[in-house]
């Protein structure tokens, strides 16, 4: 065979050819990243910094923004509604994340062992993830109705349990909204958990069975610890989701957004109202800054708590 790739001899030495291999690779890397970096800078970071600046202004969309220092923040921290909303947001987080993770893990854990009609059942659980919040919010509102209309109250009364006001109660409304929110995201979490479960090598289970562990001990000692990377991922992503809850609240309380009496109002809805009903952009920006801070803090805290211990 004749040489097809003889080293080109008398080639002019270009600048590119004089670079180190490592340097060339770095240049390639930045070339690959150029468009994305421009994108992220322009579409995400610049607007974000703009929001930080706006939070110090009294911009109302209509007249040019005026710098007013921390006045928005002062207003906000003095506003009882803000604290109520702040509280609600954390309730969504600290109820929603553990409950949804526990349920989805339970389902994934058992679904993983089911062979018969496996993908059909899995599809059932995933389906809600495919729907639009607006249409589903309406359906859920009806589920929560008192008898004779409400399915849930109907069910309760056949069990002999008193009717519950659900959305019409300052105590129950938040939970009532959380349920559809959990419902909608469950499919996604189940799929992720199942993927995590399947990634655990089977020999670990066999070894544990030989060591004499029962199902429960295997779950506690083997499955849960080995599932940690998946759990970390889901905890962080679902926390972000619950901290940013909006669609379900907006659609299920469309007559009295965030009501009754702000019992269900999360921060994002407050931001939305401040920005797009009252057009107090500066004030809304201050709220987003708070939301951003919470998100950042919670995520970092979780990553820290759940970090891999060396």
């Amino acid at each position: 065979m004749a040489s097809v790739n003889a080293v080109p001899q008398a080639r002019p030495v270009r600048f590119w050819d004089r670079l180190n291999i490592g340097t060339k690779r770095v240049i390639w890397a930045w070339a690959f990243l150029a468009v994305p970096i421009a994108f992220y800078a322009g579409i995400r970071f610049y607007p974000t910094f703009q929001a930080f600046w706006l939070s110090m202004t009294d911009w109302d969309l209509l007249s040019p923004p005026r710098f007013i220092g921390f006045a928005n923040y002062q207003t906000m921290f003095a506003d009882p509604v803000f604290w109520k909303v702040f509280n609600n947001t954390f309730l969504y987080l600290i109820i929603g994340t553990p409950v949804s993770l526990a349920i989805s893990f339970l389902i994934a854990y058992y679904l993983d062992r089911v062979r018969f009609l496996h993908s059909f059942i899995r599809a059932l659980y995933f389906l809600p993830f495919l729907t639009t919040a607006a249409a589903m919010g309406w359906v859920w509102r009806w589920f929560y109705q008192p008898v004779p209309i409400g399915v849930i109250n109907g069910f309760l009364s056949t069990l002999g349990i008193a009717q519950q006001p659900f959305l019409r109660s300052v105590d129950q409304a938040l939970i009532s909204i959380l349920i559809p929110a959990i419902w909608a995201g469950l499919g996604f979490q189940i799929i992720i958990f199942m993927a995590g479960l399947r990634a655990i090598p089977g020999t670990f289970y066999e070894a544990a069975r030989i060591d004499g562990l029962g199902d429960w001990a295997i779950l506690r000692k083997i499955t849960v610890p080995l599932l940690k990377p998946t759990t970390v991922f889901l905890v962080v992503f679902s926390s972000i989701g619950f901290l940013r809850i909006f669609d379900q609240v907006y659609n299920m309380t469309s007559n009295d957004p965030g009501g009754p009496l702000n019992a269900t109002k999360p921060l994002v809805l407050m931001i939305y109202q401040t920005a797009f009903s009252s057009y107090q952009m500066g004030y809304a920006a201050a709220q987003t800054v708070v939301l951003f801070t919470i998100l950042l803090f919670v995520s970092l805290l979780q990553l820290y708590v759940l970090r891999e211990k060396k």
Partner: protein
Amino acid sequence: MTATSAPASELTANSRDIRPGRIIIWTLLLIGGIIMITPLLFMFSTSLKTSGQVYDLRLIPAAPTFDNYLRVLGDGRFMRWFLNSTFIALTVTLSNVFFDSLVGYTLAKFEFRGRYFIFLAILSTLMIPTEMLVIPWYLMSSQLGWIDSYWGIMFPGMMTAFGVFLMKQFFEGVPNDFLEAARIDGLNEFTIWWKIAMPMVVPAISALAIFSFLGNWTAFFWPLIVTTSRELYTLPVGISSFSAESSIQWELIMTGAAIGTIPTLLVFLLLQRYIVRGVMLAGLKG
């Protein structure tokens, strides 16, 4: 993969496992699944009712009718919205697959200073509420003349941090040997990525594609803001325009939502095993 690392479930699926306990679990799971889709059943049921029957909340309509479907589908605008959504979801998905993969690959496989910083910076965008960005985006669009255009609808979603994260995890699992072999074969870095690395992460690409398609198919808020002509509405925006001042045509909304669910349902049913495999192979190393 050796037999020993096969999924546990397959190894434990002994004949012994057909036990009462299993059957109970199976039944409970099925019941749970049915409960999960009950709201969807109501959606389909409402879409088969006339506007007068909407508040008759029986699951099985007294007189089911396909009028709503005929009305919705017969309306040329609806088809247009449907096509818009398809086009937008597909384009954004393609862009996501391309750019998220490229970035994920670069972050996973290239060594350079600032790599970790860029990764963190991209991840941190997950924490920025979109609501915060809508107004700046709108300003930007209007200055650049993107209002009321497909590009205007699509541009904010062209890359996502989630995709970058997912793809990075995946590419970390691709052995360097493959890339080096290609380098020796004379491919440039771009071709190595495109011809060698990409085909090796097909499961991840399908997972990303599905999540991205679903996400964009149901996108509502931004398309609503940036479109002005009805011809450019996406399906969810179009569907919501069935509502008017405090008088919402639920039967049409449900019909639209039902029709809108069908493509995503098909996409999911066709590709669901790739999602599991895709996410599984990513290993989610945190």
